[in-house]
């Protein structure tokens, strides 16, 4: 709809449409403000220049009326913009039920993406069109930022935690993926392609990747290799919280707080279990900080999610 505006970037997701409308409205308001200020300045500078004979009598003495007037008007306009922008933001960052999930691990200086079926890509992400895609992101080193201009979606990828965003592409094509948080030497070239395909094409692409193990299956291997099943298996003698059906529920912790068992929670429990001891369980889980890379953590998360889930409320 806005293609007639010069230099307008591609619009390829439902998110982008909402942002477009807001942006055009703000452009309009900005143009109005600039025109008012510049126009008044021009008119006054010409009319009241040094040499002109126009009367300077009866200058406005009571300035309060004007000041309150334009203060109220600007505040009113600003509040409208605020509400509109906040509504989009809240919608953008509350992840709805999704059709597809992908996992992204950012590291200096590449994007590693993984699909639940085990398909892996570097600096590329294939997704189906018209589906809500949930993206779970981790960083292996410094802060990066996942940005797809055509989707108008961006979020920093922060080491030490998992960030989740979503988007829903509306047309097929290849769209730039950028890193927009300075992350070191090759930050400028840390780019990728988001390839949006039709449903059948995407399904075909998935099968063509030559993958034998899904992400959850790989996660199970890591789970056993690091001895997690020793405590968390159903047959274990150790009193450890069961993991089946955990994902998506609310967990009561030892310190009285309640946390939603999302991806970030699962990751936190693995790395710093002492801070997230579940109520009623002994604080004996060893911590794995420094022993598992973000890739392995993603696989574990995928595995635990596969053990039965409540649909995430986030």
């Amino acid at each position, binding site marked *: 709809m806005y293609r007639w505006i010069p230099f307008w970037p591609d619009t390829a997701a439902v998110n982008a449409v909402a942002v477009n409308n807001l942006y055009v409205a703000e452009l309009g308001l900005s143009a109005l403000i600039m025109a008012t200020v510049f126009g008044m300045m021009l008119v006054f500078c010409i009319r009241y220049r040094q040499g002109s004979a126009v009367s300077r009598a009866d200058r406005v003495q009571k300035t309060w009326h004007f000041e309150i007037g334009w203060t109220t008007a600007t505040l009113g306009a600003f509040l409208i913009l605020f509400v509109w922008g906040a509504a989009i933001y809240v919608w953008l960052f509350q992840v709805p039920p999704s059709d597809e999930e992908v996992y992204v691990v950012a590291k200096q200086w590449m994007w590693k993406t993984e699909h639940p079926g085990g398909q892996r890509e570097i600096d590329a992400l294939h997704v189906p069109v018209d589906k809500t895609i949930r993206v779970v992101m981790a960083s292996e080193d410094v802060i990066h930022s996942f940005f797809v201009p055509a989707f108008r979606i961006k979020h920093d990828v922060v080491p030490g935690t998992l960030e989740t965003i979503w988007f829903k592409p509306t047309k097929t094509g290849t769209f730039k993926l950028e890193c927009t948080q300075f992350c070191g030497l090759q930050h400028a070239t840390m780019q990728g392609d988001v390839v949006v395909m039709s449903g059948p094409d995407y399904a075909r692409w998935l099968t063509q990747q030559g993958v034998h193990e899904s992400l959850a299956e790989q996660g199970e291997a890591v789970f056993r290799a690091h001895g997690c099943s020793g405590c968390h298996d159903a047959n274990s003698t150790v009193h450890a919280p069961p993991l089946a059906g955990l994902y998506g529920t609310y967990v009561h912790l030892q310190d009285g707080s309640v946390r939603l068992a999302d991806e970030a929670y699962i990751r936190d429990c693995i790395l710093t279990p*002492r801070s997230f001891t579940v109520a009623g369980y002994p604080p004996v889980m060893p911590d794995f900080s420094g022993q598992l890379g973000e890739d392995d953590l993603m696989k574990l998360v995928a595995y635990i999610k596969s053990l039965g889930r409540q649909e995430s409320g986030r």
Partner: protein
Amino acid sequence: MPASATVRPEIQFATLEQQGDTAQLGMWAFLVNETLFFGALIFTYFIYRISYPHEFAVAAKDAVLWCGSVNLAILVTSSLTMVLAINAAAQGEPRAMKLWLLATLALGCIFLLIKGYEYYQDFQDKVVPVVNYEAKPGEGSAGELFWVFYWVATGLHAIHLTVGIGLVLYMLLWRIRRGEITPAYYAPLEVVGIYWSFVDTVWLFLYPCIYLVGRS
């Protein structure tokens, strides 16, 4: 004793009273700045303490409680002696003023001595991050953050106290010796007093952060 007539206001001031008031306002403004400086540090401490209460309690067990507490008493007393010195200056009792200032000086130095001994003890207890830090069981990696805070906070505080001691010495050996502190004009002493009280107050805040973690 030289008369106060020899003390003139600086060229930018009309009267000594203006000069004194201005100096005091300057010190208060400086303390606003210092409050935010230490405040930012204490804020960081609390962020981590709230995130890792257990680890902090375990790590803080090695804090030498008697050193911190005695030092607290010393500093609070030194603030009292400082106020008494200023009072003596206002009353025109130079001998009492000098004695109370010497007491303040002595108390400040004793604080530093006890602090030095405490640092030596900390070395023995292996709580110096990076140099010889040994985490106790149950501390995790967050416990070391407590000790980073400890060394930064007490180090900065000790530097500020040393500056305060220097200011008291300056008062004693320079301004008072030359008869520049009189009942008519003792603002420089008041300014040093305000600073000294601030250094004392900082310790009042650091004390529970360092020595009373997990001891309630």
